[in-house]
């Protein structure tokens, strides 16, 4: 097996026509730099997994991609992130519309303290996506269907969402994100609060969603990354160390650090 010693930063030739790109992205929390010159392409209608040891900047990078870091005080960002070749940090970009195109699912299920129906209807309502109650019903139903939750909740739509189980809540959050028809869905450790069965369901769901959406998922589980993603990016200490086809990263990593992390020698 040939050991390839290639500079990590340029390890990956750019993919053709990526959905999103990050170029020379640096991010500072006040004076602490959390991301260093990150260059990454996200391929359309694929699942990209971000892996790496705790504190390496996966969540930080993910939040850069829909500008959620804007809500944190003292964050400075330089570099460029694009969506369909447009810089999302451009002044002309409306963050509200941007986030409607790039949805997000969080580590801990966070349904609003409203009914199941209202949770899913929240996005379509604020974005004015519907003109009638029927259309809204339609969106809610298809979103729940897509999130694989419809069967379980169709008789209890007016009940509070906080009454659902953790796994159901997380799938509700996915349905909520899907309801605004985003192009990209960002998921930050969506399964870390779930048991294996609920996790399997969510993974299955991610695999189905891939045909319609571009997905970026942060995960601590190698198996999960291997199971659901087509591309994997390995972060270490705020730097993107290596990115490539998931098969290649797991069977033939080019960087020693990646190899070490995947084989469990550190992390």
């Amino acid at each position, binding site marked *: 097996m040939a050991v390839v010693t290639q500079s990590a930063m340029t390890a990956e030739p750019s993919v053709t026509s990526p959905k999103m790109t990050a170029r020379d992205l640096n991010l500072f929390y006040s004076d602490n730099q959390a991301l260093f010159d990150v260059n990454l392409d996200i391929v359309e209608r694929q699942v990209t997994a971000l892996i790496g040891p705790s504190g390496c900047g996966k969540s930080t990078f993910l939040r850069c991609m*829909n500008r*959620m870091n804007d*809500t944190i*005080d003292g964050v400075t960002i330089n570099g460029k992130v694009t969506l369909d070749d447009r810089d999302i940090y451009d002044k002309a970009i409306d*963050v*509200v*519309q*941007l*986030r*409607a195109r790039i*949805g*997000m699912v*969080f580590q*801990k299920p*966070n*349904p*609003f*303290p*409203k009914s199941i129906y209202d949770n899913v209807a*929240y*996005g379509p309502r*604020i*974005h004015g996506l519907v003109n009638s109650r029927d259309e809204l019903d339609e969106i809610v139903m298809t979103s729940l269907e897509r999130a694989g939750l419809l069967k379980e909740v169709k008789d209890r739509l007016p009940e509070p969402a*906080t009454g659902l189980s953790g796994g159901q809540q997380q799938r509700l*959050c996915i349905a*909520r*994100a899907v309801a*605004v028809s985003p192009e990209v869905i960002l998921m930050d450790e969506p399964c870390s609060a779930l048991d294996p069965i609920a996790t399997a369901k969510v993974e299955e769901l991610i695999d189905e969603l891939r045909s319609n959406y571009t997905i970026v998922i942060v995960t601590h589980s190698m198996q999960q990354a291997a199971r659901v993603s087509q591309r994997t990016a390995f972060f270490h200490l705020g730097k993107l160390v290596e990115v490539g086809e998931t098969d290649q990263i797991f069977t033939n990593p080019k960087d020693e650090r990646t190899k070490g992390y995947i084989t469990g020698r550190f992390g």
Partner: protein
Amino acid sequence: MSLTFLLLAVAALCALSFYFGRQRAVALSGGRYSNLHSLPAHYGTYTAMWCGIPALLLLLVWYMFQGSIIEAMIVSDLPAEITGDSGRLSLALNSISLIAAGNGEHLSVDPEVVEAGQRLANLQTIANAALVVVMLSTAMIGLALSYRKIAKEMRARNNVERIARYAMIACSGIAILSTVGIVFSLLFEALHFFSKINPIEFLFGLEWSPQTAIRADQVASEGAFGAIPLFVGTLLITLIAMFVAVPVGLFSAIYMGEYASSKFRAFAKPALEILAGVPTVVYGFFAALTVAPFLRDNGAVLGLDVSSESALAAGLVMGVMIIPFVSSLSDDVMSQVPKSLRDGSYGLGATKSETIRHVILPAALPGVVGAVLLAVSRAIGETMIVVMAAGLAANMTVNPLQAVTTVTVQIVTLLVGDQEFDSAKTLSAFALGLVLFLVTLGLNVFALKVVQKYREKYD
């Protein structure tokens, strides 16, 4: 020796016993504190507590009984002709204590009484001396006994903590007992009042003029004790105050919590809290001297007849007073809405105001309602502003431009000045106080329930 010196002496003894107890523990440990059950300071505290607490308890008991025991001794020595007549007896006892205090030169009284006065002075001197001796020896005995009990295995830490717990129980007991005492005295005097005036008339009567004749020879005008005008006045002013305080307080809380930069927040929050620190009497003269004349003059320009003491002036100023109350409480409940909910909303592309309207406020609503209810009970009980700015006339009106009066104002006016204690006029203050107490209590309990229910949701 005066009481101050006595207490100082006991304190000094305590300090000493702390030192001894600690030294002894250190000596027993042989240099390694881990040989002891507790830390040396615990042994010191243990001895100090045994030195101080019994002595202080003794002092308390002593003062409770000293007076009555000495009095009984004096009375038993007085001739039967004095003790037989309770009027003469109390007169004699008065003179006796005056003589004992050295102020009795100009009194012309029986020689027995003079003698008794001197005896009283003697007894008091003896008692004080005895107290000093008994107290100090109690402290010493406590010190000695606890010092001897110190041993390696003794659980000084547990003992100290148990005693500390009793002390805390005693403190909360005092707080609770005094509340209960106040409530009961309120209750009994109010019942006394209701034995003179029909409660139905009091609660539903439409006329309030409590001026009953005080002397028998005055032309007795019957007082009227219908409290409805007071309730209406209170309600009117509270309503005006809430109209000011709720929107302003709520919106400032939203601004502070959700929009303001941390720099502005660091300056504005304390500034708002200063508003809460202004004494109500200052608000009162602000209302009476600035706001009320301003309203009257401007009302005149507009052709409105604003009386110089108006519900509006009092209500507006009271509203300003309550703003920090509403804003800091609602700020608290809103900041308790978890960040994950905000993130969820922002992540779906909601704007700030959409997030506030659709997620934060609904989630915080019960808490905000609780805050408002607490503010209402604050407004109902507020006295100083209304005393100074709302007037005394018990008008039955809902016109905010006229003078009205409130329950608290009437209580003040009923009790200021010379009063005959068991007249219906004076007693009605207790009845009003009871009503006020029940209303604010009910509001507070309800508000706290609401707030609590909300808290449970996120814990």
